[in-house]
C-alpha cells in the first residue's frame, strides 16, 4: 500500500497550507511542563525550576529589583544602610507579629492537602491559592525583605517557582547530610504554603529527613500515614519502597 503524501505537501491552496501549519505548529508552553511535573509530584529538578521561571518574568524582575536595592545600599554606605536596615527589621518584626497572629500553627503531623495527582479536575492546577506569607522562617534578612515586598497575589508560575526553590533548598540540605536543616526548611515550606502544590513532595522529603536523622519510628509512622491518605499518589511507590513493602 502506497503511503499518502501529506496534504501540506501537495495542496495548491494557501489557505489549506496555512490551516495545516497552524495545526502542526502548536506547542505546549514551558510553564505547562513545570505545572504538569508539579502536579505529578516530580518537582524539584533544575529544569523544572527553569521551566517555571521562564514563564515568570515577574520573578526575574523581582530579583533584579532586589539586586538593585542591595547595590544602592552598598553605594550609599554604612551610614545610610543602618537606618535602611533598621527600617527593614522593623517592618519584618511588625509583619511577623501580624503573621503570627493570623497564621495557623505548624502542625505536628503532615498537612494533608488534596493530592494533586488524585484530585486534578476540580483543583484547577493552574491557579493555586497564593500564600499569605511565603518564605522560610529561618533564613537571612534578605529573604524576609523579599517576602514583604512580594505582592499579595502571585501569578501561578511565580508561586510555583518559589515553592520549587523552597523544596530544592530542603532537598539540597538533605543531600548534604544536614537532615535537621532540611526539616527546618520543610516546616517553613508547609507554614509558608499551607495549600502548596508540592506538599506531598515535601512530606516525602520529610520522611527521608526523619529517617536520615535517626528518627526512624517517626519516619515510619509518617510514611504509613502518607500511604493511608494518598495510596494512589505518584509518590506512594517511593514511600512504599522506603518502608520496604
Amino acid at each position, binding site marked *: *500500500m502506497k*503511503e*499518502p503524501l*501529506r*496534504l*501540506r505537501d501537495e*495542496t495548491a*491552496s*494557501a*489557505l*489549506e497550507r496555512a*490551516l*495545516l501549519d*497552524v*495545526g*502542526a505548529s*502548536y*506547542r*505546549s*508552553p514551558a*510553564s*505547562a*511542563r513545570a*505545572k*504538569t*511535573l508539579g*502536579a*505529578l509530584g*516530580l518537582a524539584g*529538578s533544575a529544569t523544572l525550576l527553569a521551566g517555571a521561571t521562564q514563564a515568570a518574568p515577574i520573578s526575574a524582575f523581582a530579583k533584579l529589583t532586589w539586586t538593585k536595592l542591595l547595590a544602592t545600599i552598598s553605594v550609599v554606605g554604612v551610614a545610610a544602610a543602618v537606618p535602611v536596615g533598621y527600617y527593614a527589621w522593623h517592618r519584618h518584626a511588625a509583619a511577623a507579629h501580624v503573621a503570627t497572629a493570623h497564621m495557623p*500553627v*505548624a502542625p505536628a503531623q503532615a498537612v494533608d492537602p488534596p493530592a494533586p*495527582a488524585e484530585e*486534578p479536575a476540580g483543583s*484547577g*492546577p*493552574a491557579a493555586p491559592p497564593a500564600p499569605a506569607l511565603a518564605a522560610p522562617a529561618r533564613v537571612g534578612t534578605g529573604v524576609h525583605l523579599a517576602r514583604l515586598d512580594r505582592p499579595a497575589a502571585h501569578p501561578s508560575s511565580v508561586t510555583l517557582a518559589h515553592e520549587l526553590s523552597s523544596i530544592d533548598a530542603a532537598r539540597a540540605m538533605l543531600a548534604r547530610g544536614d537532615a*535537621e536543616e532540611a*526539616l*527546618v526548611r520543610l*516546616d517553613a515550606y508547609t507554614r509558608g504554603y499551607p495549600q502548596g502544590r508540592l506538599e506531598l513532595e515535601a512530606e516525602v522529603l520529610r520522611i527521608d529527613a*526523619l*529517617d536520615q*536523622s*535517626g*528518627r*526512624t*519510628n*517517626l*519516619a*515510619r509512622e509518617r510514611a504509613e500515614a502518607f500511604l493511608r491518605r494518598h495510596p*494512589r499518589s*505518584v509518590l506512594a*511507590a*517511593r514511600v*512504599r*519502597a*522506603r*518502608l*520496604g513493602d
Partner: protein
Amino acid sequence: MTSAAVYEVPPADRGLSVSRDPAREREARLRRLVDGHIDFVARVLRNSGTPQAEVDDEVQRTFIVAARRLDDVRIGAEKSFLFRIALNLAAHARRTLARRREVSADQAPEQIERFATPEALTDQKRMRELLDRVLDQMEEPLRATFVLHEFEEMSTSEIAELLGIPRGTVASRLRRARIEFRERVGAIEALGKAERET
C-alpha cells in the same frame, strides 16, 4: 516551633534500609513520558477540539491519568496510551463547551465568513479558530486519523497501530477526512472570493 520540638528525639535505630530503585525508575519513566510527549499531547488535545484556555489543564489531567496506570502500560506503548487519554479528555471538553455555548455545527458557515478576508488570513489566532471550526465538523474517527497524519506526520501503519484498526481503514478514513477538509476550506475560500468581488 522548632524542628527539634516537632520531631522528637530519635531512637537509636537508623535507616529504613530498602532499595529506592523501583520508585526512582518509575519517577524517571514518568518524567520521560512528560518530556517526550507533552507537545504531542497538547497538540492532540488542541486539534481534537479542546478550547485553548483549557489545554494546559487537560495536559496535566492526561499525565495524571497516565501516572495512575503507568504500571499497566507496556514499554513502547506510552504514546498510544497518552493519545487515547487525550482523545477522551478532548471529547469531554468539547461536549462541555458545546453545552456551555450551545453551539451547533450548522452555524459554522455564517460564523466563518468573516475570516475569509486577506487581512484575516494573516491573523494566526483567527486561523486557529477557523481550523477549529473546520475540524469540529468532522466525525471523530475521521478527525483523529486526519490529526495524526497531517499534524503529527504519522504513517498509516503507525496510525493503525495507535488506533488498533487495520491499515486499510486508516487509509479510507484519511481519504474521507481530506475530502471533507478540502470541501470546507474550498467553501470558505469561495465565500471570501465572492465577498471581495461584491
